[in-house]
């Protein structure tokens, strides 16, 4: 029928497809452009405000001023880039979570993965759990480990009843409460100094960023994104529900397991280095969904880009809202994110979930 009918319709479907593809590209490019601008402003902002043009020249390697170069390259760029990378990892993992759990509230923060990481970090701080690692790496390593454990826990609880999205979400909520209780217990027995350190870690902070940490996050992203894009159409099929995806030929349990493995690596590496940052993983995918829909070929990269953009903007805000002080980024994302999100939901005409 294709031969006879294609002559009749005159390429309307191809035009629609081209339009959808153009829209995905445009949203992605606009997001990346905004990222570049935000990055330069993020680097320029700090205790010593730098002129934006000089920062832009320095980032591009065209600087003449060695003082600016030093500040930019050894202090501010790693922080600014880590903000982008962590934001991208959180946005991406939130996007997949919302897809495979078919739930608009899913994110690493709401399903206990971040709480797991927090507990892991607190364990090192309070009990000094000895890891065969130097001090600055012990906390991230344990945070990463417990983020992965929490992910595995969500999956294990969910698979008790056939890995249905509802069971997985319930498993995540249960783990959130479990880890919060365990964390509270640790805080209860902690010395005042340790308690302060835990609280500060939980706030989330970009200040311990370094080039080596950046490369680790980038490496995880570089592995995760192609893996996810290879499953893009199968993930899109999952949006129609488990049974229909199965009817289309998707091995649903294996797809979910693969996705969970990627989520745990992305979330683990993100929270390990900067602490718990809520909201980015929840909001970025919603933003992406409103703009490009749920074809995962567009949704996943866009979730990553918007996550990066949100955290970069939050980083700028964290240095400017209180002159002379850097407000912990985890506080800023929620304080600015919540009203923004409510506004976003209220103004959208189309029901987007």
């Amino acid at each position, binding site marked *: 029928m294709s031969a006879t009918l294609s002559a009749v319709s005159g390429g309307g*479907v191809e035009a629609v*497809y081209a339009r959808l593809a153009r829209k995905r590209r445009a949203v992605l490019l606009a997001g990346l452009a905004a990222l570049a601008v935000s990055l330069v402003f993020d680097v320029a902002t700090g205790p010593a405000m730098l002129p934006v043009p000089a920062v832009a020249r320095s980032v591009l390697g065209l600087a003449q001023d060695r003082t600016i170069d030093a500040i930019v390259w050894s202090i501010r760029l790693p922080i600014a880039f880590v903000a982008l990378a962590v934001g991208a990892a959180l946005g991406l993992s939130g996007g997949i979570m919302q897809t495979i759990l*078919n739930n608009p509230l899913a994110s690493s923060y709401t399903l206990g993965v971040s709480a797991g990481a927090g507990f892991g970090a607190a364990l090192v701080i309070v009990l000094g759990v000895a890891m065969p690692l130097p001090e600055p790496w012990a906390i991230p390593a344990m945070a990463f480990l417990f983020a992965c454990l929490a992910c595995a826990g969500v999956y294990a609880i969910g698979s008790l009843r056939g890995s249905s999205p509802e069971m997985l979400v319930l498993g995540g909520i249960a783990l959130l409460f479990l880890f919060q209780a365990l964390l509270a217990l640790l805080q209860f027995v902690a010395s005042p100094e340790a308690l302060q350190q835990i609280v500060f870690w939980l706030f989330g902070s970009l200040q311990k960023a370094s080039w080596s940490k950046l490369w680790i996050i980038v490496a995880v992203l570089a592995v995760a994104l192609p893996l996810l894009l290879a499953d893009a159409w*199968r993930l899109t099929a999952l949006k*129609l529900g488990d049974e229909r995806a199965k009817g289309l030929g998707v091995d649903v349990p294996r797809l979910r397991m693969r996705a969970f493995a990627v989520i745990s690596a992305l979330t683990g590496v993100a929270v390990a280095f900067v602490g718990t940052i809520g909201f980015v993983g929840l909001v970025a995918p919603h933003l992406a969904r409103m703009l490009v829909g*749920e*074809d995962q*070929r567009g949704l996943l990269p866009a979730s990553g880009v918007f996550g990066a953009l949100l955290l970069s903007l939050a980083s700028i805000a964290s240095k400017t809202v209180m002159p002379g002080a850097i407000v912990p980024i985890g506080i800023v994302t929620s304080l600015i994110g919540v009203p923004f999100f409510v506004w976003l939901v209220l103004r959208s005409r189309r029901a987007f*979930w």
Partner: protein
Amino acid sequence: MRLTIEDLSVRYGGTTALAGLGLSAMPGEVLGVIGPNGSGKSSLVKAVAGLVAHGGRILRGADDGAAARIGYMPQDTSTRAALTVLEAVLLGRLGSLGLRVKPDDLAMARAVLDELDLGRLAGRYLGELSGGQRQLVFLAQALAAEPKLLLLDEPISALDIRHQLGVMQTVRRLTHERRLTTVVVLHDLNIAARFADRIAVICAGRLIRHGRPAEVIEPETVATVFGVEAAMSAAPDGSLVVTPLRAVTAAAPMDGGAPEAAPHRPPAAPPPGAVIRNGR
């Protein structure tokens, strides 16, 4: 390809949905499945599609020995996915989709959309469609797979009568033209009588009757299976017309009692002039 079902049983927990069901369907043939609510029609289609665990054997022997492609359209077409009609139809070709969609896949999506007169909706989101339009989209998705075995679970339940006839005409034509093996679950006995080549009547998880529409849909079966007194007559074109007159008993049990338990009352004699004729 020929579909052969032997001794099929499906259980959900302690509930038996299907028991000892044997059935076959031939290429180029529309097999209509009818029966009351909860009789096991959907379970039959899902078992054939490989979506539920089952006992017994289902042979989907492809003519050329290759694995038969299945196009399955579920009964429930509600969705919250923010996907366009085109994206949903492309998903029917999941096996061959890559990051870049090939012109072949796009051409096939266009062909099925045109076939069902959905071309102008291609860019619309599923959430913006009516229930009937959505049903057409999922039929298009099933057809986009270029199936050899087409499984449709109540494909026209939300459609107006023009689209009901249009869809069934299309399904029947494609089945005959491309020698598909089509199994379609239907509620409307008249639609089943008009468009199915053969009909399987299922009640309480068992096959009650199987044969040509005029042989199968007759007053006694309708009374036994559906608990409805009906009159049979012939349309001007000779096809069977079923006129339901009144509910005579409680409907058959919904959750799998033995078929013997189905309430049975001798059917009223057909009104004078009622004719049963083989339509085709």
